[in-house]
């Protein structure tokens, strides 16, 4: 899971808190009860806006948790390409190990696949060593066919992950759109031998929803896509529900949310 906060009112305070939660996502007594205390459970990354990267860097010192930064005029992507590239470079320089870019939906709507490829390839170059996740914003793409094509273009242009949504569209990650995107990942693997990761984001708030996604990944792509190097949830409130479900598993009872340390 990429534990995420992407709000206008983010400050150093809540980002530091989020990072602390990322390092200790589940109450220790629950982990002990499940025999998982020594399993090194953390979130996959912490995902923040560019401005807040330095605070996250400081807060995550001593952990192996990477910082993901949303970039390229997130969430709408309505800035010029040079500005997008500059933003990526700045984020990488500030210490982001992962960059979540947004594509220009205009290019998808106009079926200008070549321009889309060039844009994403330029972003890839700007990312350098950083891991690049490409957000398609599928809620703003009108057909599954276009989602499939945009997925393929994003992978061809060098994305490490393809990601559904910013969490800011009116419709975010859904299972049908996931099916389309993961089948394109499978197609790309068959054609090239490269494994590309998948990140559904936005609207996945319940442990049960998360399980549906995990089952879909296991069925369509297999066990490798249940690992953090190829699969992440982009979520802010999901962790809270997972903790409550784990407590239910351990104790047989549901706890109130205030019994779990907040992020």
């Amino acid at each position: 899971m990429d534990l995420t906060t992407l709000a206008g009112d983010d400050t150093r305070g809540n980002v530091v808190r989020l990072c602390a939660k990322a390092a200790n996502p589940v109450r220790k007594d629950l982990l002990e009860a499940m025999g998982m205390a020594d399993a090194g459970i953390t979130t996959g990354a912490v995902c923040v806006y560019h401005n807040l990267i330095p605070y996250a860097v400081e807060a995550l010192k001593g952990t192996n948790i990477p910082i993901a930064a949303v970039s390229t005029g997130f969430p709408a992507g309505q800035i010029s390409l040079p500005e997008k590239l500059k933003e990526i470079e700045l984020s990488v320089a500030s210490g982001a190990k992962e960059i979540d870019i947004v594509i220009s939906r205009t290019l998808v709507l106009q079926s200008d696949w070549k321009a889309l490829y060039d844009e994403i390839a330029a972003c890839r170059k700007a990312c350098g060593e950083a891991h690049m996740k490409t957000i398609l914003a599928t809620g703003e793409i009108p057909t599954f066919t276009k989602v499939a094509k945009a997925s393929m273009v994003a992978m061809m242009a060098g994305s490490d992950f393809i990601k559904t949504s910013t969490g800011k569209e009116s419709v975010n990650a859904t299972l049908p759109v996931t099916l389309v995107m993961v089948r394109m990942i499978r197609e790309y693997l068959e054609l090239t031998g490269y494994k590309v990761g998948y990140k559904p984001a936005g609207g996945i708030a319940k442990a049960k929803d998360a399980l549906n996604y995990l089952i879909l990944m296991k069925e369509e792509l297999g066990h490798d896509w249940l690992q953090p190097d190829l699969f992440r949830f982009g979520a802010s409130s999901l962790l809270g529900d997972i903790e409550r479900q784990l407590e239910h598993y351990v104790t047989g009872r549901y706890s109130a949310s205030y019994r779990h340390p907040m992020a």
Partner: protein
Amino acid sequence: MSIKEIYQTMEYGPAPESNKESVAFLDSHKRKFSLFINGKWTKPSSGEYFESFSPATTQKLAQIAEANEKDVDDAVKAAKKALKPWVELGGHSRARYLYAIARQIQKHSRNFAVLESMDNGKPIRETRDIDIPLVARHFYHHAGWAQLMDTEMKDYKEIGVIGQIIPWNFPMLMLAWKIAPALAMGNTVVLKPAEFTSLTALLFADICKQVGLPDGVVNIITGHGGTGAALVNHPDVSKIAFTGSTEVGKIIRRATAGTGKKISLELGGKSPFIVFEDADLDSVVEGIVDAIWFNQGQVCCAGSRLLVQESVAEKLYSKIRARMETLRVGDSLDKSVDIGAIVAPIQLKTIEDLVQKGKDDGNICWQPSWTCPKEGYFYPPTLFTNVSPSSIIAQEEIFGPVLVAMSFRSHSEAVKLANNTRYGLASSIWTENINLALDIAPQIKAGTVWINCSNVFDRRDLVDIESQVMVEKAAKRACTNM
């Protein structure tokens, strides 16, 4: 397995559905079921009972009464006596009973689903999400027709006492297909469920009692072929409705010929599943899972003959094999199982024999690397490729989870191969090109053509153009064809 191990392997665990309510139902009849005649549980005059087993566990479920000629006669007499008052009730009043039955089925849907799964071996996921919800919808739908009979079907008269003989592959759904329209139109019925799967029909009898359905309107008699023959030959039966094997269908047709009895038959199939090169192959694979591995392939309209355009054949085969590897066969009451058990050892043997013949004919047989559970009557999903139309597995209905595949070169050859069968029940066409689909569909000699889907059902009949001659207008037809 410890949590840590599960976390690493991410293997599925068991997800059993509780069978408590269904066990309570069986126990409430002391696991020994009588015949449901004239609204009463009646001991069989033969004094004979036979065993009913759960195919997924081989566990004995109950003893079922064997009805002989005398019992059949009693049941038909009861139905005949109930006929006149049932007709005179009128459509609106009959609709009230049908609505009540539909509501009770919904209320007891979990019990029906679990019992059906135990009795037949089909996955609980299917009975819970498909069979039983559809059963309730059929009763609601025909309650509507009963209400409309006075205005929409003025000239229609009831047929009389209808003898209904149904198969084991969709026990409750077939019961609904037969009983709901018959009752709506003012007929009374004597229904014989298949000997392997009588239990949900008996639970249905309990429901009929609960809603206060007049005695004799629905009679459920259990037994083997002899019971069915007695029903077919009874002089007071005005119509025989049969769904089942082609072989038995022919016997019934012969037996009723010249007697003035009406007849409707819904028999076997070897339905083509035609894939053109521009189809979305990932969707095709899921369509195939639905066509041939739904209900273990024990479906009359199963898409059991895969015809695929040469240019994409190998690609599709490898996708199918990858999908087969992830299918899960197991206990029918496990909520995460894709394929349940084969209904009975005799059916399992039929499948095994036909697969052996397919191998002997030199066709290429492929099965997943995993093995089926040892207890219970299971058969793995099976794919035959490079099958020639002359091979027996390309012609005979296997009625099991076995797909036979062959390729075609041109559109016209696809049509020829599709129509190269003595059946003609269903078919499906897969292409992203609407013009091609509309060109091919009318050329396929089958009663149903699905485009980019398979096994899509609502309240309407399957019509086999070869062996059935029952064509009226859409939904009204369903009312006359019970």
